[in-house]
């Protein structure tokens, strides 16, 4: 892992990965690395929450382990599972060989002792199927663990996370408690679909990534498309900010700004006029009603630009 000794270091290594980070974001990432605490990243969709974790893993040359959360996610998909089929296969083999194992036993007690010894073998590492959380805890090298859209999982799943997040360990009843070899850098992202529990929040550093300022957004666009003209970036960013001011259902996110910039470059647009706006509106907005509103206010949107 590359060494990070200051907030500026974080900003620089992220910038090298094409992630333009504000000082606030860099500070909290730096704190998370130094304090070995998870970061809970919240904010609207498309502002770069997931990308932050991905960029950091690339920047620090650490393996990224991602867990995508969804309703109904349980420990067998997130932490570990026993390989039932393999166990069953071994049971079948054992069935055939059972006489060899207990053949020379003097009495029933002796036979049971021998069988109990075998039972332990069934619940060992050999039959354990590690899922992302366990993988990250058992990894020999430090990893970046991304628990994406944690708010989409059920509240019960949060309880499983608490142990991992607070003491960096996982308890498997049949084996015991596994302590992390290297404490991972954990990112949890949330779109505020539901409120997360206070217990979970308390264990994390809270980072709210909002829509960026005009300057920062312009910088982001330029970092993605270094040859784009300054005037076009300026107009584009101002237009996006004006659209975000409108009362629409879904405000365009940073990723949509980048897509829009790309489409304007592809179409070799020199200046954004209502015609160009109309042509490329599908990239900025996903709802018909929002599109109508943007076009009705095109003077305001492009006037601001």
């Amino acid at each position, binding site marked *: 892992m590359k060494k990070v000794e200051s*907030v500026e270091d974080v900003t620089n290594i992220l910038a090298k990965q094409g992630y333009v980070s504000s*000082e*606030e*974001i860099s*500070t*909290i990432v*730096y*704190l998370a690395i*130094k*304090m070995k*605490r998870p*970061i809970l990243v*919240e904010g609207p969709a498309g502002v770069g929450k997931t990308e932050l974790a991905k960029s950091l893993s690339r920047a620090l040359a650490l393996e990224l382990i991602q867990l995508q959360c969804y*309703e109904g996610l349980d420990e067998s998909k997130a932490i570990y599972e026993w390989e*039932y*089929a393999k166990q*069953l296969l071994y049971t*079948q083999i054992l069935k055939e060989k059972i006489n060899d194992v207990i053949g020379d036993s003097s009495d029933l007690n002796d036979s049971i002792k021998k069988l109990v010894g075998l039972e332990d073998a069934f619940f060992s590492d050999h039959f354990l199927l590690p899922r992302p959380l366990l993988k990250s805890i058992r990894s020999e090298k430090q990893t970046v663990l991304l628990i994406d859209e944690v708010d989409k999982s*059920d*509240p019960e799943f949060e309880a499983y996370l608490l142990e991992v997040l607070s003491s960096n360990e996982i308890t498997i009843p049949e084996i015991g408690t596994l302590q992390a070899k290297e404490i991972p850098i954990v990112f949890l992202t949330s779109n*505020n679909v*539901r*409120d997360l529990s*206070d217990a979970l*929040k*308390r264990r994390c*550093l*809270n*980072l*709210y990534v909002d829509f960026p300022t005009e300057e920062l957004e312009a910088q982001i666009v330029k970092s993605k498309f270094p040859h784009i003209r300054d005037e076009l970036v300026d107009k584009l960013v101002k237009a996006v900010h004006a659209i975000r001011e409108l*009362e*629409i*259902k879904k405000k365009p996110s940073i990723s949509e700004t980048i897509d829009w910039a790309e489409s304007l470059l592809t179409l070799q647009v020199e200046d954004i006029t209502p015609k160009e706006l109309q042509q490329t509106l599908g990239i900025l907005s996903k709802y018909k*009603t929002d599109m109508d509103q943007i076009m009705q206010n095109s003077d305001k949107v492009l006037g601001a630009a």
Partner: protein
Amino acid sequence: MVSMVLKFAGYMRYNGLTVSTSALHNTISAMQWVNPLNRTQVYAALESCLVQNMTERKKFRKIFQKFFEEQSLIELEHEEVAYKMQVQEFASQLREEGDYVGKILSDYMDGEVAGLLQNMGDNQTFRTVYDETASGIGMNKEKVRADIIKRIDRLKDKAVDFADASFHLSREKREALSDYLRQQLEDARELLKNNPRKRKLRNHLMPWERQKAISSISFDKLTMEEQEKVKQEVERIAQKLKDALSRQKKKARRGHLDVKNTIRHSMKFNGIPFNIKTRRPARKKGKIIALCDISMSVAYAAQFTLLLLYRLQNRFSKIRSFVFIRNAYEISDLFKKYPLETALKKAIKQHHIGMGQLTNYGATFKSFLTNYPNAITRDTTILILGDALNNCVDPQVQYLKEMSDKALRTIWLNPEEEKYWYTTSSAIKDYEPYCSQVVECATIDQLSDFAKNLVL
């Protein structure tokens, strides 16, 4: 640095934000890693550790600015101490009056309520411990109580004068002190009358007290700031209900064994049913027709109910919303076009709805049946949100009866307190026989209970 963090946390708590000990501990260790002279870094470190609820970010920013940039720290420290000293001073002035009433009340102001509590209730035996200095021993409890109440009435004016004369406090603080003293006295009076009244007017509450009480404040008495908090609370209730629903769903799923599917899947395990398959029960979803009175007297309550309904809309196959004053108009389209907040504002602002006219429930139900004859089906739940103040016109109950007969159930949510339902201006007594349920829905707690019954 540690003392600065502690003071800042204290200031946050004073302003009504919660700061847990573990958050404080995190903050102190985070501060070791940032440059204390860099404002952005200090801000980010404090915010990441101390703000757990993102809705509190705005408030946190203000508090941060006030604390660090307006240098109100020293001022605050002094003012806080001065404020507390003034409360103590008021208590000691009472003690100086020398009699038992003064002593009981001064102890009470100092936080020692035993003396006052001994004089509550109907027991006629006087068991006070104020024997030496107060010489109230052996007196009739009724008499003591009457004396204290009389003194309190006199002291309430004195408390205002006392606060006004605390010139070393800021005007804001003086007002807070006056409110606080008066309320303390008022509470004591209520305790003695043995008839503790439900607190409704909140202007005397300190910030940290307000947060706790919000769920029991009647909707019509909320300040703008509190309305925002109630909206957040409504969102929370919606989430809780969704969680409860998903748990219920899972439980139900676990209970239904799908034999065919289980046997089929056991084939690959040599007939051993390794994976038990269960059958997902069909979800019963109903339709909701919400009729909201948006005349001035009830508009405040309509917004919260609609907000909750729309957050729970996945639970229902369809929600159609109508607003009325004397005619019902559908506003479901507004909800499709705009975010909920904006849609509600627009709905209430619509001119053709008849703002400023007198509410007429009978005419509304009639217009609903005429204009939307097919809206109600057998699986529809009709929700009527209104205070039933019909301005003494004919309630025309036959139209509500017709609606109820068509629907699965009719629930009337009344934001008026129940004791006012049977006054002459309220038509609720006429409509009640045709409703499956009439529910008082004036506070967030009541709204939450109602929603639970509706969806669970």
